[in-house]
């Protein structure tokens, strides 16, 4: 066991854990965060995704010791139910999920991409999400929610709430 200092969602934490513990376990067990989730433990599905230094990474596959002192952002670090981040609001507006278990992978991966590449094409968005799994099949709504967020962002209204767009009949990806 060793004492490790972590900065998660802007707050400092000190944990006393086996330094080889996957970051995900520390986030969900020691810090009791609910955003990142265990899907496979193999870095294959994305459910555990967090943002580290601007990159979307799989927290199930990183030992906690390697991120000591690095700013870590989880899904709850973006916004709250009362005040969601615009990308979260876009998913809520578009009713772009079903069980929602995969949502950290989808939102955190898309956010990291658009922070880095604001004008990402749809092909680039899909490429970034190539190894993120939504088993309920909300794929079209998710891509649409990401693009809506991107458009808002490009229009310079990052906090504006969009009209609810979930009930549209025709969806294209």
């Amino acid at each position, binding site marked *: 066991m060793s004492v490790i200092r972590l900065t998660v969602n802007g707050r400092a934490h000190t944990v006393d854990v086996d330094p080889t*513990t996957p970051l995900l376990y520390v986030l969900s067990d020691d810090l009791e965060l609910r955003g990142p989730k265990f899907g496979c433990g193999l870095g294959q599905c994305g459910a555990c995704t967090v943002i580290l230094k601007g990159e979307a990474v799989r927290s199930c596959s990183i030992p906690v010791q390697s991120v000591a002192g690095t700013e870590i952002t989880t899904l709850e670090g973006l916004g709250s139910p009362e005040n969601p981040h615009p990308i979260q609001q876009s998913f809520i507006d578009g009713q772009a999920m079903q069980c929602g278990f995969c949502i950290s992978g989808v939102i955190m991966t898309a956010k990291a991409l658009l922070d880095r590449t604001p004008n990402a094409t749809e092909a680039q968005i899909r490429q970034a999400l190539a190894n993120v799994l939504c*088993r309920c099949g909300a794929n079209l709504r998710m891509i649409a929610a990401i693009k809506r967020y991107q458009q808002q962002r490009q229009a310079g209204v990052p906090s504006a709430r969009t009209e609810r767009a979930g009930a549209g009949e025709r969806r294209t990806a």
Partner: protein
Amino acid sequence: MSSLLTPDARAALSRREFVKRSGALVVAFSAARFATDLGLAPGSVSAQGINGVGSPNLDSWIAVGADGRVTAYTGKCELGTGLYTAQLQLVAEELSVPIDRVTLIQCDTSMTPDQGTTSGAQSHPSNFNHANLALACATAREAFVQMASKRLGVPIEQLAAADGAVAVRGDPSRRVPYGDLLGGNTFNLQLNPKARRKPASEWTVLGTSVPRVDFPAIATGRFEYVHNVRVPGMLHGRVVRPPAIGATLVQVDEGSVQGMPGLVKVVVRKNFVGVVADKPWQAEQAARRLKVEWTAGTPLPDQRTFHQHLRSQTATRDALSVDSGDVDTMLAGAATVLRSTYMHPYQMHASVGTACAVADVQGTRATIWSATQAVWPLRNTAATLLGLKPQEVRIIFRMGSGCYGVNGADTVSYDAALLSQAVGRPVRVSLSRRDEMSWENYGPAYIIEQRVGLDPGGTIVAWDYEGWSLSLGGRPGYNAPGNVVSGRLAGFQPQGVQPRSPAPAPTGALDNGSNTVPSYCTGAIGGSSRGTGTVRSERVLSHVVLSPFFTGPLRSPARLQNTFAHESFMDEIAAAVKADPVEYRLRHLRDPRLREVVTAAAAKAGWDRRPSPRNGNGSRRSGVAAGRGMACVLYEGDNGYCALVAEVEVNLSTGLVTVRRSVAAMDCGPVSNPDGARNQMEGGIIHGISRALREEVTWSGDRVTSVDWRTYRPWFLGDPVPVIETVLVNRPDAEAMGAGETTVTVTAAAIGNAIFDATGARVRQSPFTPERVKAALEART
């Protein structure tokens, strides 16, 4: 009680807390008592039906506090489909209260009625028609009107309920809120079968696209899934499964993990092995290091010839769904006889999150937080497993990762319970990806042989179906913990297959719950035709054999496999007589609602009327052929109409199939939430594409080899998805039907038919991998 609480936070409030806060008294009840009331022996087949025994007591469903807040109790839970929000809408509508004044408690054996299992697209039929939750709300609303009539001295005809109060029509100043009428007391009423439901024409909440109430918490990482349940003093467990099918435990070397940090205990019960530690990582490492000796596994049949193996089994359980008795004669006299064989693989639920549960078993008290679809049945089987009485066990539902049927939720509940009992402290268990995929209850493989006889005009005059599938275990129900892996490892037997051959003659009314009978048959038994089609000469014989793997319901269980065979074969027949596939279907369908969804989907898709295959579309030049296909179904024979048009492109050199457009029409009666229904239709199509094009459980030697997302690869977010268009045929005055499993049922057939239309190649084995499509292309003559 604040409506701002997330659903889980609300549900976390115990009934006692609710009573304290709202001032309402709530009468507890016992499922066993109601089974007796209904004249059923507890544990009898009827009492164990998919929808449980419910409750005739209004107070079991609805409580209204003196403050006017409404708490409803439901035995049908949110599995990610939007049912929680839809049930809130139902209560708000039927009881005439604002939706934000309603709290819904779902699936907790200490609080909610026994509604059996949330599955089979049965939640709408059971809770939104004239029974259970809907009837409870209607009964309560009428009771309030009667109370107000007495209070105000006004006849009930002159009163109306709205906004949580009863008021005199035309004089809103004379108004009594529900809270005042009931005064924090119970109703002490039985559900009134004659209570009048609010007509759909008056709906203002139900029937509208109310956004999911749980999404803000989910999207911001605040929602409490079962994976997030934390209990004081909780430890972490990890199971050690056998390495191969049929392997049994020889010995465990506890010394191999002695002194490992945080290790609390190694637990062995018959073939069940697990470890408990302070931290999840410690448990995982201990499970990896623990030396366990197992016997050799049982060799599995060769996967390459598995369907032939299945087809040749002799100890079968046989069932005749229909048999007009004249099929052989009609086939012998037919102008043309066509035959075809379809094969479907084993597929898995493959939930994104592995199964997880928390159990706290101390002495004769057990509480299990579980994502099970079946809290009441699980209460009984967990009690059996733990050697307790059912009333000593409480199951509290917490949503898990989408399950799509009996995934690992029950298994892991047993794992947690066994480990917790062994250490006398709460234990959380989360399965590894490999353990979940290697041992879950797969949707079974099928091989289906069909023949039809045609008259000289090309109309079908006889239909003969013979199908083989497999079974082992399944839902544990109320009394079979051995139906899932951990129950079996702990020493309980799974339900096997009791051979029965020949099949008894069909009696009673047609039960087409597994869609074994094609839509084009009359489904006639004893002079009563409950099928949807016109073909009178019909025989539908199915065989079930013992499966080497656990099996269980997977989204559209058996319905998908059967519909794949029926709808693909129907397309072959249409092509053989050079008929347009849509027109040919309509020629053999007599159910007007099924005809309507077929017509609606075709119209929306701009269906090009002509026989398949399409000829000469420039594919030689581009190397890509395009085509369209149709499939339809009345799900479960009575639970949701759906038709789907798929448009695909086939790469002629690689065999790769891309679905470009999917147009679905659905009629599930009155639509509770249009956007929610569309979300289900869209998700079902993408789930269906994944299963049609990619998914197949694989094995080799004595073990499963599809054990992670590389070896079992569903549709990921980067994979191409079609444009999806949906048509909802709303029938406000019809009975509510299921909406969650219709599109997935028809997707594989529609895609296969579109492949044929594009290329003239018929792929009769799913999934339609590039290799299989290429082989079919090469086999064209």
